[in-house]
């Protein structure tokens, strides 16, 4: 049957996606002697020792907390500034709107490596180096344009008559926006928050450059540990698995909107 063949191809692809992740998980529940000693598809003696190491050592788990804090700050900032702007882009023509929109997008195209040094100097000079705010603001460089872009797509799908009716009914703009419009684009906001979370969570270069001790993110902890103390594969794998968990949880909440969100609400 034709359908069977299609599904086999899909299964092969998903297997290809999951195999490396499985291998990481597999290593995280092995001891180092087993990792280095023999090639086993399933661990002989599953152990949670590697996870225990991470969850009891502040040097490790503070990294997760730091990452969560700056990601959360970034998502809030991005949404708060992007919501009104996206509304403006979706509803009004104004002087320079097209250029502004393209200029915003160019920031999404800028290689973070270009901004590395200036960011470092900028945040050092205003005393924000090694704070969560610094990383959150730096990530706004690509998250705010992205948020505007996605939200604009979702907002353009809402008929304008709704705005007009509300104004005729005597709603002021802030009241209309907060009580009618935002509930209407809930799913868009959810998807946008998901994307801001995603790009802030996965970014390493800026987060690592702008922090040293107090706000050091987990991704930086991982790269530094590898270079410093040789290779403790088991703990490294466990740390990797733990960074996947928050992402997997977040995807579950937006699973029905993901496809539309990836298309920036433009389908």
């Amino acid at each position: 049957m034709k359908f069977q063949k299609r599904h086999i191809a899909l299964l092969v692809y998903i297997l290809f996606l999951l195999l490396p992740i499985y291998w990481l998980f597999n290593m995280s529940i092995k001891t180092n002697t087993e990792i280095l000693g023999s090639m086993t598809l399933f661990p002989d003696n599953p152990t949670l020792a590697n996870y225990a190491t991470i969850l009891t050592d502040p040097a490790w788990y503070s990294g997760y907390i730091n990452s969560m804090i700056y990601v959360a700050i970034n998502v809030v900032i991005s949404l708060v500034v992007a919501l009104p702007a996206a509304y403006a882009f979706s509803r009004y023509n104004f002087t320079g709107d097209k250029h502004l929109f393209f200029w915003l997008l160019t920031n999404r195209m800028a290689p973070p490596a270009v901004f590395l040094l200036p960011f470092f100097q900028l945040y050092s000079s205003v005393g924000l180096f090694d704070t969560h705010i610094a990383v959150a603001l730096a990530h706004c460089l690509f998250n705010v344009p992205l948020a505007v872009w996605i939200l604009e797509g979702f907002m353009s799908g809402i008929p304008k008559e709704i705005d007009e009716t509300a104004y005729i009914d005597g709603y002021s703009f802030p009241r209309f926006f907060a009580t009618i419009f935002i509930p209407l684009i809930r799913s868009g906001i959810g998807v946008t928050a998901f994307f801001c979370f995603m790009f802030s969570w996965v970014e390493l270069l800026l987060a690592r450059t702008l922090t040293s001790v107090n706000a050091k993110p987990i991704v930086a902890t991982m790269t530094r540990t590898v270079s410093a103390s040789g290779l403790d594969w088991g703990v490294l794998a466990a740390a990797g698995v733990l960074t996947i968990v928050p992402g997997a949880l977040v995807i579950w909440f937006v699973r029905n909107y993901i496809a539309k969100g990836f298309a920036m609400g433009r389908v």
Partner: protein
Amino acid sequence: MNKITNNKAWFLVLPVFCIVAISAIIPLMTVVNYSVQDIFGPDSRFFVGTEWFQQVLDDSRLHEALLRQIGYTFSVLLIEIPLGIGVALTLPRKGWGVSACMVLLALPLLIPWNVVGTIWQIFGRADIGLGGYILNMLGVSYNYTQSSVDAWLTVLVMDVWHWTSLVVLLCYAGLRSIPDAYYQAAKIDGASRWAVFRFIQLPKMQSVLVIGVLLRFMDSFMIYTEPFVLTGGGPGNATTFLSQYLTRMAVGQFDLGPAAAFSLIYFLIILLVCWVFYTVVMNAGQREEQ
């Protein structure tokens, strides 16, 4: 949709403008500033004009990195776009399978980039990694830390693993927007599978494919973290792409002037390619509509 002209809308855009200006214009000005000066210390700096730009443009190692980058980005696009379309066509359209596939497909996208590097670093090793072990068992001599071809291929496969899902999800969103009536009409006309793809599915996917190609181009052109973790740019310079080279120049050797000049050129290349592609495709789309 007809939009009202209202310049008060600027007030709504102002917060975004300010925040992006702080994090984009000021740093960019710093880069421009560095690119035309030679800086010895806080108080001793000299204007050097276009010297750094000339030095960067004559840098033969930079040319190699650029060629490597172009080859890499094209390989990424050539593999990921067709593969993404193909996988999107096999996805189920309804039922519990949809949610399950969405979550599984999106999973690689949510993994921090350095962890992606770590995953493949572990997976590809011949002694402790499943992938490298199987390949060597099959008689393929494979070692990404020694052979530059293997290293390059590993980085490529890693990128396919990491980002094809993005293309899949985009295409899937495009496919879902096709009403069933189109397929029924095609069936009545006796259209072949290829004709359905060429005349119904592909046109509907066009706008999302533009987004997909643009995103994949930009991101693969600035790839840094994954090869940094996986191979560190080696062996030799086999996987040293532009961002690696730039970071090494700016942070490693602290050559601020050349690094800044290079940054500007780098940024302009990306902008130019994206702008040209975007304009060409959008114009083609408008012509078709007319």
